[in-house]
């Protein structure tokens, strides 16, 4: 992990299984809402995307993701934790490049907060992609 929001390469099933255990000691959590974004093998100008290379302004990602986490917790009082993880470097089609997990007491705030966090990640995190064919 480059910092708590960025990981080099794909977000592997092994890493996801480890992330799922976070907050297990918080018995007040009744709902875990997750979004996983994967690289699609889109066709662009007749060529099939084989992978995407992500780059980021690391320090600003930390500042913005801290802000997103704070905003989510303020807006959804039932939310207990927010995890945001994005890939940098090369991620092949079919592999995961984004992981968002929100734990909450109940499902309503959790699912809405997860969706809201996703939209803010796309809008606010300084991350760029380059398609590799």
């Amino acid at each position, binding site marked *: 992990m480059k910092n708590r929001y960025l990981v080099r390469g794909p977000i592997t099933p092994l890493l996801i299984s480890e992330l799922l255990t976070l907050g297990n000691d918080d018995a007040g959590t009744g709902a875990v809402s997750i979004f996983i*974004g994967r690289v699609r093998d889109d066709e662009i100008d007749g060529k099939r995307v084989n992978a995407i290379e*992500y*780059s*980021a*302004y690391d*320090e*600003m990602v930390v*500042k913005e993701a801290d802000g997103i986490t704070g905003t989510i917790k303020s807006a959804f009082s039932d939310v207990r934790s927010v995890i945001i993880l*994005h890939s940098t470097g090369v991620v092949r089609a079919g592999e995961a*490049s*984004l992981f968002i997990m929100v734990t909450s007491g109940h499902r309503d705030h959790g699912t809405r907060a997860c969706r809201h966090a*996703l939209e803010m*990640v*796309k*809008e*606010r*995190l*300084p*991350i*760029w*992609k380059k398609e590799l064919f």
Partner: protein
Amino acid sequence: MGEEIRVLYFGTARETTGKNEELLTAEDTADLRHQLIQKYPALGKIPFRMALNKELLKADAPLNNNDIIAILPPFQGG
């Protein structure tokens, strides 16, 4: 004259300028933007925003010595 600042390039701005970063002198962000587009005309075709010391700018701002300006093409995460 002006303030010496560090300019960081990201995304397609990196390919356009051929640089990851450089030191430049500018009075304010409007002056910097003007200089950049003169120096790298292709940058004028990218709808980039700027961050001053990691803070996304919504309007032009004055610059101080050792400020860090990041040139940010549209974000593409997710």
